[in-house]
């Protein structure tokens, strides 16, 4: 599969701060690459450098096999960007906003009208064509923001945290739309600090921290880095220290915590760990209200790699 973006040794510094540190990666055609990292990890700075919105000290950036520069207008024609902040005119209606932003790429009026109708349908704003942004809810506004970035049918789309402060219904709508764009052949770079979203839509994930790539691969590949197999959580009213010691002594148990009536047991390996723990609790005549098992998350991966939570 051909590379749509190739970034080599990208370095961006703000006075004392190195926001992006010798970063190298590529984005393959037709994939959704997730850039995952906490706030300040360099995700947005990397995107702004790729788009030539920011100068950078070192590195090479190629898009569609050509060097990306501020005046590379032929490349820009095929790029769409959805910024974290809503970037629309408050004075224009939904349709007028789309007409203006699409008009910056598509001169032919009829083609533009077709594209705008398709973009409106994609984000589900058909009923709001004549609404001004002030009349739209936060979720609808985000959808308009996305529509403005993709109305001209770009081959490469950057989505910079498009679901921040969006209600669950709108979030699902937005994520479905992004998958639809990928299915239509677009390559997508998606930055977020919501790991659930990354797991839902990304084909490949790159974890960033302090401007460096910590790890990259598919979600399953990354989860293997977490070095834990399973996490079992039990809601139990009372537990003696002696019982906790016995649990710690069980096979494959990595860590045991008991706080506020919640017992958390982390297994580093093994199979049927949940069943074995249930048997142990019954043997010890310990009653519990709820018990469930979780596979490791990307947050666990991040914790393993950096020693801190993604949302810290």
């Amino acid at each position, binding site marked *: 599969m051909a590379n749509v973006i190739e970034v080599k040794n990208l370095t961006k510094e703000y006075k004392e701060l190195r926001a992006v540190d010798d970063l190298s990666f590529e984005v393959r055609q037709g994939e959704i690459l997730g850039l995952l990292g906490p706030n300040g990890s360099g995700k947005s700075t990397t995107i702004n450098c790729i*788009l*030539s*919105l*920011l*100068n950078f000290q070192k590195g090479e950036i190629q898009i569609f096999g050509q060097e990306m520069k*501020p*005046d590379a*207008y*032929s490349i*820009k*024609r095929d*790029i769409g*960007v959805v*910024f974290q*902040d*809503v*970037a*629309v*005119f*408050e*004075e*224009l209606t939904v349709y*007028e906003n789309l*007409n*203006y*932003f699409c*008009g*910056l*790429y598509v001169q032919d009026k009829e083609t533009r009208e077709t594209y705008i109708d398709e973009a409106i349908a994609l984000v589900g704003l058909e009923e709001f064509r004549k609404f001004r942004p002030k009349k739209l809810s936060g979720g609808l506004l985000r959808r308009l923001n996305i529509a*403005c*970035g993709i109305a001209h049918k770009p081959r490469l789309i950057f989505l910079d945290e498009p679901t921040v402060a969006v209600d669950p219904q709108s979030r699902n709508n937005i994520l479905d739309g992004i998958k639809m764009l990928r299915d239509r052949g677009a390559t997508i770079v998606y930055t977020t600090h919501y790991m659930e979203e990354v797991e839902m839509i990304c084909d490949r994930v790159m974890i960033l921290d302090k401007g460096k790539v910590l790890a990259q691969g598919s979600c399953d590949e990354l989860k293997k880095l977490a070095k834990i197999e399973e996490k079992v959580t039990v809601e139990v009213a009372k537990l003696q220290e002696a019982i906790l010691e016995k649990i710690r002594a069980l096979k494959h148990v990595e860590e045991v915590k008991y706080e506020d009536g919640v017992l958390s047991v982390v297994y580093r390996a093994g199979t049927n760990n949940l069943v074995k723990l249930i048997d142990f609790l019954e043997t010890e005549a310990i009653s519990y209200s709820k018990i469930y098992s979780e596979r490791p998350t990307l947050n666990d991966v991040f914790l393993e790699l950096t020693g801190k939570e993604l949302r810290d």
Partner: protein
Amino acid sequence: MTVFKAFLKVLNQCKGTVILYSVILIVFGALNMQTNDNSTNFVASRPDVLVINHDEEKGITKELISYLKKNTEFIKVEDSEEARNDALFYRDVNYIVYIPRDYRADVLAGKNPEIEIKSTGDYQSYYAQLLLERYMKTTRNYVDICRAEDGSVDETALLEQVKSTLKKETAVETTSKLDADKLGRLSRYFNFMNYGLLAGAIFTICMVLASFNKEVIRRRILISSMKRRTHNRLLLLSNALFAVFLWAAYTVIGFILCGTEFFATKQGIAYMANSFVFMFCAVTIAFLLANLIQNKEALNGIINVIALGSCFLCGAFVPVEYLPDGVLAAAHILPSYWYIQNNETVKTIETWNFETVKPLLVNMGVILAFSVAFIILANLLSGRKRENA
């Protein structure tokens, strides 16, 4: 066309404010035109005078009263000194003349009797004093001449001589062929247009540019496939078109209000040229402000300060001749000063040649120099912003 259409849509949101500024211009401009500018008209002044005669009203004394009555307004006041003083205090009377007992006899005898007066001290009272002194000096001169010739005075012949001398007046003729009144009104309207152009053009352009220059919008434009220069050029052209429209509308309104006959005259063309140059300057100020400030509320306040401040300091609201020298000296640093100076000059030009037009061209040159300075500053600021990115 996409940029122009978006410009018009954003502009449409400012229409309320533009209409408000236009209404202010028309209403206050029209009110301002009602004030009369008499700088080129001549009207003889008649002071209010009260004569208290303690002498017999005949001969020289009678003629003095008659002369004063002819050239002043005689006022009746209650016969008490307190009432006279009150009349002076309230400016009901400018000048009170007390003709002493035996005034006539003393003059004929060659004496120089003293006439007591009371005065408000204003220019009207000086004129009354002038009349009184003129009569007294003329009479005394003839008495002296008669007495020197044959030692006696024929009062009837003397009064004939005095009357004939005092009849002589200097004729004042206004030579201007301009309708000074109408031209003055037009000049005051164009002075007032300083406010309309500054407030209207700067407000609208700044508000529209603030929308287009919003950081998030600017970034979206920058990453688009439309060249930045092309976009800026289209935006500049849209703003220029709006400014020309505003100027044309205000100019046409001015000629309708003040006299359409001036439209094709040299004066009319000069007013139009001057205001067009000033409109260009207002556009450059708008570009500079839009580069400096992004916050719309702050912009609104600053625009009002600039528009109203310029108008008050430079003589758009208050005639230039009433402004203190210090204020006018400070106003030199504002383009409005040179614009208003030109309007004031245009109404006085009788003969149009290079020498008379030269001051207008110089002032327009100064306004254009201001515009160039604002453009350079705006470019420096936007360049610095790009570098900081």
